[in-house]
């Protein structure tokens, strides 16, 4: 809402000389946040000047400048002509112009001083419109004042202050109006708040207008409200005032004060009738509609639309109506307007209209809000109605419009007055006067509470020792409960009165295990050289295809946004890795070829249901609550990582080493290890991984919690990534749930370690994991650990075979093992492998 300070002054005593900044600060205190301050960016001297001489001088660079002497009266303190260099040419000697003198500051903090330029001392500037932050008036350069102002040059005196002439001394404060303060979408409402904030006297313009507005009578234009389907029990229109003014001159000019007021408040000046309706709406907060009386046939009927009915609105769009829309109709048939949202083109006031019907109505906020939303049509009227318009000002607003049409349009007002009024007065709130003290933490006396609420406009009926009856004023439909009144007390007494006291919670449990684990995992990955990222979690079917997810891959089923930011990414991710590859690509494009990234985040991993809703303030039944919870898809937290290029770089120390599939798998195992879980690995073939280089990662109980390995070469080329990118992803929630138990300390054996090497020849298809499993089974409890130190495939072991060389480490917790014992255990381990997968000792 734009609030021109001069307009504000008409309703409340704003101190003379108050700046926009001061007014804005006063309004912020009371809850009207400043958005911007318009105008007033200039401090003088900015004066009227008359050009005496203008001598063009060509410069070395070919540019022509004008050396001018300008009469600025006594404004320069000497009365002598002012010497000014000017680069523009759209003026001549004798013209009346605007001159800014040294000492002035122009918009943007641009300070003017006398300076030496082009061989002259130039003391000021002859101004163009844009230099003063003004719209161009067609001169495309220096302002020619008589033309711009529409006055004779003789009306202007050199040296005269030009700020008020150009309206540059007027400031407009733009404030943000919160949805509960519909009444502040008017100068009247803001003026009242300004009064609350500063104590300045507020004069409600409605009081005088209401006293002058005539009573309704039988000769008013016939109006009927016929709402057969009220929304949420509220009739769509509970007040309808209609007044008629005849013989308005369609060509009547808009007076300057009116167009200035409307323009400063942010609307366009269009014609006298339109500007008057906008003026009344901006001033009082009551949206009006002006109908061309000649286009109306019968009585006005306010009714719900019929599905499929059509209307062409003022903006020349033909709109198909919804059954819930509230309409203003001619005789119950022809739609004239979507009530409270926008009028129809047919009944619009045009440049031939002379008889006008003014509508000042009060519509149900819910009905207007829904219509505006359905038609995606947020108008100045709907914005006000859906936030609540004061139902008590309809007659006053119509009166003001009538007065102005008569005064400036030459019209005659009809004696007939229509005022259908079924407004139900607000019910009193049973209010505990101690509630402000209890909720705010400031001790307010009963008298303070009463005085504050009365200042807001409430009618307070004090009941000693019991709850008071407090009735909210007609312009505050938002005040319905005790806490609403508490806020008024706190706000008007000042939020700065509230002391600062630290809340003392009951002792907490600290972080949960899963919250701690997340930090541990993330810190470990960072320490490993990976960078944590937060990617946008939106994906597409196309991306799933690029990742080679099969048609029935469960990762394709997820929730879809109905209003995505981009149609190219309308789905929520089912894999964290899927949204990380874009960041990897960005890093590579920015010149980093050795990159490791990781991310922790939620993914969708289950079907979405239909969640019931419930009215506000209602505690749902256990069944409804369960249905709400069950409809929300399962969203586990995953951790994913991706690496490309060298994990260890080449340098002065020697060769580097690229990250390969085994690093990706090792990362998975490392994540398990930092949480004390020995994860297991098996061969797998899952997109988006290379079918032969994909490991599935399992909990010790065998459940699969993710995959790691090298990405499929086709995935990489499709996504424009370099070859051999490796990656992995784990369900961190599943891992956390498994890890969630205190670790168990085993005694540390201190006897010497012994080792023995074996090279086992097995079929090429046998995995190391299977062999190691068998070694562990056969090696007995003294087999402490083992390490695969060589893999050989070739002539020496024969076609379809490979040799896996292990070093087995043995240790007993009780004594030093003999060579004999180690050999026996080793042989048992080898036999177990042979039994499991068929193996011979290499060279045996």
């Amino acid at each position, binding site marked *: 809402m734009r609030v021109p300070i001069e307009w504000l002054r008409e309703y409340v005593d704003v101190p003379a000389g108050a700046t926009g900044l001061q007014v804005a600060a006063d309004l912020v205190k009371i809850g009207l946040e400043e958005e911007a301050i318009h105008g007033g960016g200039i401090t003088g001297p900015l004066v009227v000047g008359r050009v005496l001489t203008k001598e063009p001088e060509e410069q070395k660079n070919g540019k022509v400048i004008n050396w001018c002497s300008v009469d600025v009266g006594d404004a320069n303190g000497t009365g002598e002509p002012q010497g000014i260099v000017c680069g523009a040419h759209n003026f001549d000697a004798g013209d009346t112009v605007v001159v800014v003198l040294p000492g002035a500051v122009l918009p943007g903090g641009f300070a003017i001083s006398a300076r030496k330029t082009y061989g002259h001392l130039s003391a000021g500037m002859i101004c163009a419109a844009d230099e003063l932050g003004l719209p161009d008036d067609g001169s495309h350069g220096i302002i020619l004042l008589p033309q711009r102002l529409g006055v004779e040059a003789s009306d202007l005196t050199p040296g005269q202050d030009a700020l008020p002439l150009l309206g540059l001394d007027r400031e407009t404060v733009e404030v943000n109006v919160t*949805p509960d303060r519909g009444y502040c979408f008017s100068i009247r409402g803001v003026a009242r708040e300004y009064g609350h904030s500063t104590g300045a006297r507020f004069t409600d313009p409605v009081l005088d207008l209401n006293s002058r507005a005539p009573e309704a009578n039988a000769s008013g234009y016939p109006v009927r409200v016929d709402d057969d389907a009220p929304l949420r029990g509220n009739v769509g229109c509970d007040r309808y005032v209609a007044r008629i003014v005849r013989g308005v001159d369609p060509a009547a000019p808009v007076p300057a004060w009116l167009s200035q007021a409307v323009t400063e408040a942010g609307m366009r000046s269009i014609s006298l009738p339109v500007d008057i309706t906008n003026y009344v709406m901006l001033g009082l907060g009551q949206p009006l509609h002006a109908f061309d009386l000649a286009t109306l046939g019968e009585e006005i009927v306010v009714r719900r639309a019929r599905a499929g009915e059509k209307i062409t609105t003022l903006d020349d769009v033909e709109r198909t109506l919804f059954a819930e829309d509230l309409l203003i109709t001619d005789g119950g048939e022809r739609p004239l307007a979507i009530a409270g949202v926008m009028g129809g083109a047919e009944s619009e006031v045009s440049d031939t209209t002379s008889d006008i019907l003014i509508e000042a109505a009060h519509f149900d906020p819910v009905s207007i809000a829904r219509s505006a939303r359905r038609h995606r049509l947020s108008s100045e009227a709907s914005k006000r109605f859906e936030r609540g318009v004061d139902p008590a000002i309809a007659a006053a607003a119509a009166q003001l419009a009538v007065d102005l049409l008569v005064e400036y349009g030459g019209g005659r007002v009809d004696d007939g007055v229509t005022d259908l009024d079924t407004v139900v007065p607000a019910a009193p709130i049973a209010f505990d006067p101690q509630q402000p003290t209890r909720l705010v933490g400031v001790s307010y006396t009963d008298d303070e509470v009463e005085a504050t609420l009365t200042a807001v406009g409430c009618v307070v009926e004090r009941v000693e020792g019991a709850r008071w009856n407090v009735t909210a004023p007609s312009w505050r439909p938002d005040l319905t409960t005790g*806490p609403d009144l508490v806020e008024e007390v706190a706000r008007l007494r000042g939020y700065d009165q509230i002391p600062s006291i630290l809340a003392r919670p009951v002792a907490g449990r600290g972080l949960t295990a899963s919250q701690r684990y997340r930090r541990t995992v993330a810190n470990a990955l960072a320490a490993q050289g990976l960078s944590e990222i937060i990617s946008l979690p939106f994906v597409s079917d196309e991306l799933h295809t690029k990742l080679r997810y099969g048609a029935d891959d469960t990762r394709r089923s997820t929730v879809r946004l109905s209003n995505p930011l981009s149609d190219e990414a309308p789905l929520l991710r089912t894999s964290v890795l899927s949204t990380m590859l874009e960041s990897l690509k960005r890093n590579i494009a920015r010149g980093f070829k050795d990159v490791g990234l990781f991310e922790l985040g939620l993914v969708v991993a289950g079907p979405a249901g239909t969640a019931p809703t419930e009215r506000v303030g209602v505690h749902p039944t256990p069944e409804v609550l369960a249905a*709400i919870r069950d*409809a929300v898809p399962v969203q586990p937290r995953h951790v994913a990582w991706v690496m490309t290029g060298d994990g260890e770089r080449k340098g002065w120390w020697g060769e580097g080493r690229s990250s390969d599939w085994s690093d990706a798998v090792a990362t998975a195992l490392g994540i398990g290890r930092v949480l004390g879980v020995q994860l297991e690995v098996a061969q797998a073939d899952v997109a988006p991984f290379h079918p032969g280089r994909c490991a599935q990662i399992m909990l010790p109980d065998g459940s699969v919690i993710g995959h790691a390995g090298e990405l499929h070469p086709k995935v990489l080329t499709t996504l424009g990534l370099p070859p051999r990118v490796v990656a992995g992803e784990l369900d961190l929630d599943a891992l956390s749930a498994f890890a969630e138990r205190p670790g168990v300390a085993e005694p540390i054996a201190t006897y010497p370690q012994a080792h023995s090497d074996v090279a086992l020849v097995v079929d090429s298809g046998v995995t190391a994991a299977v062999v190691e499993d068998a070694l562990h089974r056969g090696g007995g409890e003294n087999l402490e650990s083992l390490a695969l130190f060589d893999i050989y495939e070739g002539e020496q072991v024969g076609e379809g075979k490979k040799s896996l060389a292990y070093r087995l480490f043995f240790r007993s917790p009780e004594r030093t093992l003999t060579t004999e014992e180690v050999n026996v255990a080793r042989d048992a381990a080898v036999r177990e492998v042979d039994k499991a997968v068929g193996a011979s000792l290499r060279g045996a």
Partner: protein
Amino acid sequence: MSGPNTNYDPVEVSALDPEVVESNVTVALSAIAAANSLEELKDARLAHAGDKSPLALANREIGALPPTAKAEAGKRVGQARGRVGQAIKERQAELEAERDERILTEEAVDVTTATTLRRPVGGRHPVEMMQQLMVDLMVGMGWEVAEGPEVEAEWFVFDALNFDEDHPARQMQDTFYLDPADGGLVMRTHTSPVQARSMLERGVPLYIVAPGKAYRTDELDATHLPVFHQLEGLAVDKGITMAHLKGTLDHLATQLFGEGITTRLRPNYFPFTEPSAEMDLRCFVCRGEDPACRTCGGTGWIEWGGCGMVHENVLRACGVDPSEYSGFAFGMGVERALMFRTGASDMREMIEGDVRFDAQFGLEV
């Protein structure tokens, strides 16, 4: 080697002559002193203290002496060998020390070459670290961390929080809706649904913070992210007032941004709180002392988030009796807090995933 001497003839054992012994010692000591390396010392040792050295040979002759001469000769030769042995030991120590020193000198490197990194540098995301910092301050006061899903039921996001379906505030949330439109699911527009979940699941009294992602249909630019992080706080207990809200916010602000950085409350509107307030942070650049400050625009205050006393309808929807309990809630953007704390100025950097963004901070912000 000579056999046992049965016929005493002192002339035949001239090797035991005191002068000869002394002369052998002198020769040995000068050879040892002349040895300039461990190798030369080894040669000298073999020559003068080895099995074939004159003194060793002399020692063998002692056995052949008549018992009366044995003691004296034995003492003489023993002392002589002792002196030589000691000299070798000392020289050995000297030469070893020299060698060790030389090796250490030779092994010196240019340690400044180690600044070239062998492995890519990792890091935590600063937004995560900022969130962690804020969470830890609250946990330190005894609050607990609550979490919830990001795809969320409208009831939790709006209805439970007193956003009436027809109220303009519900339209102002820039909500991502999910298909189908009547499915009752949205992307949560704030982390506030966790308030409702926590009250329902844990009951009251309750002191929780809910950190996490929130979604709004904002186009990506320097100051807007469609997916951002919020920290929501909720305290519900008997006797909670706005003063407790102010105290908690002041503490958090001072801890995060420094001594003297407190908060200011300003009337505002939120559907889920009444009374409601906007919280401003004392400008951490000018501290309210520079009318030309660019950070706060000269007002001395910077907008930080929203807060207020939990609306009675929210308590009711979550099964809490507002006549018995009251509560406060607050919410602030983590990205914004990070910008305040670190001077980061472009939010886009926070979701681009450029490794340099993390690398500037490491594991702390």
